[in-house]
């Protein structure tokens, strides 16, 4: 059977953009397999160090291209923001490149969707040839309109040039604003509140990080706000609509142009194979989240249509459009959509997905399959209320957690809370993004497309099928689409099951250094909370109590108890001020007496509180030939019992007067926060050790610089901020339990009866 489309396109030279994307790849595949006589060029930009040619070679090596392995594709290297000169014998251009992110920063949205189109059309016009330009847009350029949407120009009077100028200027403007005193000082204060205990440089780094994020968020927010103020759902559809205006202007100059608008593109119905999909599109994250039991609600109504089309219908109709160029100066419009004649509703989607997962649940770890949420479709406002409450509760819990004393339970809560937080964030992001689409009662009229389809010969109608009216949605979703998108996740789950433990966060291994080797390694240990469960207040009390008799002891405890809120406050504010407050209490003590008290009374206290795992780890380091260093804000006498474990002890020295009495001050600033980091670097430099080979062990957020200074940081029973940081940075987190007073429990859960 002969194909009319194939004949029409035979010998034509077509340039494709965006072939590395989902639609572009499918289009390339279809043209190579079904229209072999067409000559193809592709415009590809280099990515990193990979050239465009290499990217195409890699693309053609994919399994779906196996049948057309000897295909000839001419690669034009270049970027759409400044496209190169086009081949001089072109007959058509299909422009399907573009960022499909719904919420790009506003300048990027304009660059991709407006500037890119304008520059490409400039090159098209420069060839001076009669080129058919096919523009892949989106059905949702209709924005916040409701009801039937015709296949024609979007009705609006936005000044494209003015918006473009505004949009492109925003990055500079927002960057400028982000450095303004209000923004920058708010971000700095917040960073200091959160990270101040770790030192001002850590806080500064966090503040700059926050500023960059603020710029990005602000650009996204600006785009969305501007789009909504003009009647579009988001920056994507807004800039896409402006892009169409650029195409219409091009047509108005007497050129041939087709504006092609697909709805939501999902996996293939039959070609290259059923269920073929690249990457995750719009609905997939939601489907997967639902299958994991993590999507408890959705803001759509059960009868609202979700307008999806399979990708093979999309590319088939593009090829048909390509074979039927419109008249000069009169752009043609085509919708590829399903909502008008054969709609899928959210209710159907939900039932189908639910039925699928009920039959084939994810193999969800050791707790059995996830419970599938039941959607009640309560409507957008109600969903918003639930979300808002959830977010408020999460915020309050987070604040409370920051105040809670550190313990296993607190870290457990932090882990749960963070998981909840991630879920909430995921939900919020998707609900915000899709709320507009989920509630959009849009019916994209596809009369032109249907007419084009009906005009094809029966053979072409089979080869290039794109009548969405005949799709059995239940079969498509249940048997093709959802199995296809869940497959990679299932494979990942399998892999994860094979791996016993997650690789990141594992305790770094200690490898012995041979004495002949030049490389030396050091391990730095924090004292309070890491090697032992105590804090400075307690240690002060131990020291004093040794000197005092019974009644005086009680009085001293009472006096300290009265001061505790002050100390606690000081501890939150800054570690070094806490240390200074506590060390004032040593005024008047003779240093040699302190040594004596430690040797006589405190050795047992201190040794009895050492975490056995910590001691074992220190000894492992020593056995491996590493240097061990104790870094502590505690006063030197307290470290006496630990002398045999360390090669070097960096402790606080109390200042003494000429009679050997403590003045209540320190001889030098206590080593806390950032000064620990610089101590590590300086000490290592002097010893000729590379910090990248070193280990550090600490428990508190204020030790962050110490941990960050070495190559193998380990968080030991961390407080919540350090716990979060360690998880984020994939640092090892260990639980070195210190014995309370008498005993170390083997297994706290095992305390039965």
């Amino acid at each position, binding site marked *: 059977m002969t194909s009319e489309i194939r004949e029409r396109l035979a010998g034509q030279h077509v340039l494709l953009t965006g072939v590395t994307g989902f639609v572009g790849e499918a289009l390339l595949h279809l043209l190579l397999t079904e229209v072999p006589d067409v000559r193809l060029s592709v415009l590809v930009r280099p990515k990193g160090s990979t050239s465009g040619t290499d990217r195409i070679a890699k693309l053609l090596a994919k399994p779906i291209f196996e049948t057309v392995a000897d295909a000839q594709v001419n690669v034009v290297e270049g970027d759409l923001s400044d496209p190169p000169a086009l081949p001089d014998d072109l007959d058509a251009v299909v422009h399907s490149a573009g960022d499909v992110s719904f919420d790009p920063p506003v300048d990027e949205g304009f660059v991709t969707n407006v500037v890119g189109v304008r520059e490409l059309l400039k090159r098209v016009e420069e060839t001076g040839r009669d080129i058919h330009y096919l523009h892949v847009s989106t059905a949702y350029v209709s924005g916040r309109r409701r009801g039937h949407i015709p296949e024609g120009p979007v009705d609006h009077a936005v000044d494209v040039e003015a918006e473009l100028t505004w949009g492109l200027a925003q990055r500079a403007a927002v960057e400028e604003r982000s450095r303004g005193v209000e923004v920058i000082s708010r971000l700095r204060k917040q960073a200091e509140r959160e990270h101040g205990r770790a030192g001002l440089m850590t806080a500064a780094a966090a503040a700059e990080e926050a500023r960059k994020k603020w710029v990005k968020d602000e650009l996204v927010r600006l785009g969305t706000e501007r789009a909504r103020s003009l009647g579009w759902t988001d920056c994507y559809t807004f800039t896409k609509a402006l892009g169409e205006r650029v195409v219409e202007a091009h047509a108005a100059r007497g050129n041939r142009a087709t504006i092609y608008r697909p709805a939501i593109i999902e996996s293939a119905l039959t070609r290259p194979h059923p269920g073929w999909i690249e990457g995750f599109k719009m609905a997939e994250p939601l489907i997967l989240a639902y299958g994991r039991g993590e999507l408890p609600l959705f803001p759509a109504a059960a009868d609202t249509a979700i307008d999806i089309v399979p990708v093979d219908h999309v590319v088939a109709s593009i090829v048909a459009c390509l074979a039927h160029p419109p008249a000069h100066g009169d752009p043609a419009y085509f919708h590829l959509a399903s909502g008008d004649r054969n709609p899928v509703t959210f209710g159907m989607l939900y039932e189908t997905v639910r039925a699928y997962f009920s039959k084939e649940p994810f193999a969800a770890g050791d707790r059995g399959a996830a419970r599938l949420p039941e959607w009640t479709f309560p409507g957008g406002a109600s969903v918003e209320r639930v979300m808002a409450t959830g977010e408020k509760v999460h915020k309050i819990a987070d604040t409370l957690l920051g105040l809670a004393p550190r313990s296993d339970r607190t870290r457990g809560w932090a882990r749960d809370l963070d998981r909840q937080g991630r879920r909430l964030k995921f939900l919020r992001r998707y609900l915000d993004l899709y709320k507009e689409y989920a509630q959009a009662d849009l019916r994209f009229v596809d009369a032109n497309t249907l007419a084009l389809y009906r005009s094809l010969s029966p053979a072409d109608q089979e080869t290039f099928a794109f009548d969405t009216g005949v799709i059995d949605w239940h079969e498509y979703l249940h048997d093709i689409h959802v199995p296809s998108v869940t497959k990679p996740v299932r494979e990942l789950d399998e892999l994860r099951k094979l791996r016993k433990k997650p690789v990141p966060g594992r305790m770094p291994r200690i490898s012995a250094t041979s004495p002949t080797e030049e490389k030396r390694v050091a391990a730095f240990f924090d004292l309070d909370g890491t090697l032992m469960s105590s804090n400075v207040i307690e240690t002060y009390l131990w020291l004093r109590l040794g000197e005092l008799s019974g009644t005086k002891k009680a009085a001293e405890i009472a006096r300290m108890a009265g001061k505790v809120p002050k100390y606690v406050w000081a501890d939150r504010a800054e570690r070094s001020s806490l240390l200074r407050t506590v060390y004032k209490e040593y005024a008047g003590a003779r240093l040699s007496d302190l040594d004596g008290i430690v040797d006589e009374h405190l*050795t*047992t206290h201190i*040794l*009895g*509180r*050492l*975490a*056995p795992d910590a*001691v*074992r780890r220190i*000894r492992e380091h020593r056995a491996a030939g590493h240097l061990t260093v104790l870094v502590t804000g505690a006063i030197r006498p307290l470290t006496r*019992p630990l002398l*045999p*474990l360390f090669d070097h002890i960096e402790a606080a020295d109390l200042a003494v007067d000429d009679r050997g009495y403590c003045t209540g001050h320190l001889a030098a600033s206590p080593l806390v926060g950032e000064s620990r980091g610089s101590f590590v670097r300086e000490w290592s430099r002097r010893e000729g050790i590379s910090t990248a080979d070193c280990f550090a062990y600490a428990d508190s957020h204020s030790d962050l610089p110490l941990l960050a200074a070495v190559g193998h940081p380990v968080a030991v029973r961390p407080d919540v901020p350090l716990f979060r940081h360690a998880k984020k940075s994939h640092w090892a987190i260990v639980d070195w339990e210190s*014995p*309370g*007073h*008498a*005993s*170390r*429990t*083997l*297994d706290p859960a*095992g*305390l*039965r*009866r």
Partner: protein
Amino acid sequence: MTRPGFVLEVDDRTPPLLVHEGLGFRLEEFPQGTRVVYPPESLPTVPDVEEAIREALENPVDSEPLRELMFPGMRLTIAFDDLSLPLPTMKAPDIRGRIIEQVLTIAAEKGVDDVEIIAALALHRRMTDAEMKHIVGERVFRSFAPQGLLYNHDAEDRANLEHMGVTEKGEDVEINKRAATSDLLIYVNVNLVAMDGGHKSVGIGLASYKSIKHHHNAKTMVHSRSFMDHKHSEMHSSAWRMGRLIGENVKVFQIETTLDNEVFGRPYDTLLKREWEWSLRDQATVLGLRRGLAVAPQKMRHKMFHDLRSNYGLTGITAGAVEPVHELTVQRVHQQQRVKVEGQSDVMVMGVPYLGPYNVNSTMNPILAACMGLGYYFNSYLRQPVVREGGVAILYHPLDEGFNTLTHPSYVDFYEEVLADTTDPALIGPKFEEQFATDPWYVHLYRTSNAYHGVHPFYMWYWIAHALDHLGDVIWVGGNPKAAARMGFRSASTLRDALEMASSTVGPSPSITYLRNPPHLLADVR
């Protein structure tokens, strides 16, 4: 008249019987036919302790009276058993303090002023001042400790150890230098069980690791059958050889004491009585204790039990030459603790209490619990073990107390590193012992802190070597499964489950013997 020990056969009239398990106890209903071994009730105590001590010192066995061994200008050293004896710690005054006071009085009368007093703790932990004061008494402590004349033996103090020679079997004899170079070495002992005392006192109590390792190893311990019968114990033979060599070099005057069976004072004495004889008061006490223990947090239970002081009375004191003195001592211990048991059984049941020799004022970690059951209780026999070869031991202990890092630092590492590798006593020695024994950190802690020597957990494991060699299975009722598994044992939640598990080894209806201990008993298995 003291009632002798006897073996009860459980029938349908037998009430639930008391079984100790760590910081608590339970009332267990044993299957009918179970044999329960009760020790004899307490022997009569000496009417006047001071008089008995005086009598022993004036009329020693095979020796001149102590008074005549002393002379002005002599070097006199008094060594005494450390806090691992007796169990629990005696109510003050401790018998050792009373003896030392009399010895010091005689020394003063004879014009002896070079006197040092040493706690013979071998590789045990150093005692704290308070613990030392409790044993020797306030007056002795005050007069000697501040001058450094009363101190803990240090088996790692190279400068203060004396190598006295090698026995005919090639064993090094190395003991405390002060003791070895004294004109007279007086040893004050508490002979709680039959394995204590004799040449073990000086030969082990004051020895160094180099010397002790000759008999504290898996091979010797497997061939000690039983430890309670020093003539059939390899370990004792070795100690005897060493003791004789010491005796050739230094004059040893041994003072040994024996105690009755009053392990607990009121109101806990109920726990020592035979269950069917419990009065209303006893029953109320047991009920109250059980209720209280059920709700008390572990810390409180620990304090409650460890604050108990025993009511031991002195049943006899003998002084003089080591060997004849010890013969008499062992006779008295046997008289107090021996129970005749007819034949072995398939299963042996033991309740491991809260206290053993090595966790006084500390915690009963899983290794110590295993040692208490499979070391002390299992070996508490004469002639042959209570359980047949290939039989099953069922022990009660929750194994959940964890490790005291002050007193048992090397135990934690032994548990995490050695037992995780192998639980075979014959393998751990060659592979790990040297490393633990010579580890500078453990040595430092042993010498300066209150830690058991690094090698001590190995000795615990060698201690149970004979039991592991003899038994077909070991099951802990109520034991933490993780801890039990780490040690190579199994755990069950009830006796019924344990017997079910044991049935694969000893069949569905095994003969069972329960050692109702404490009070201390020594099963004489015919």
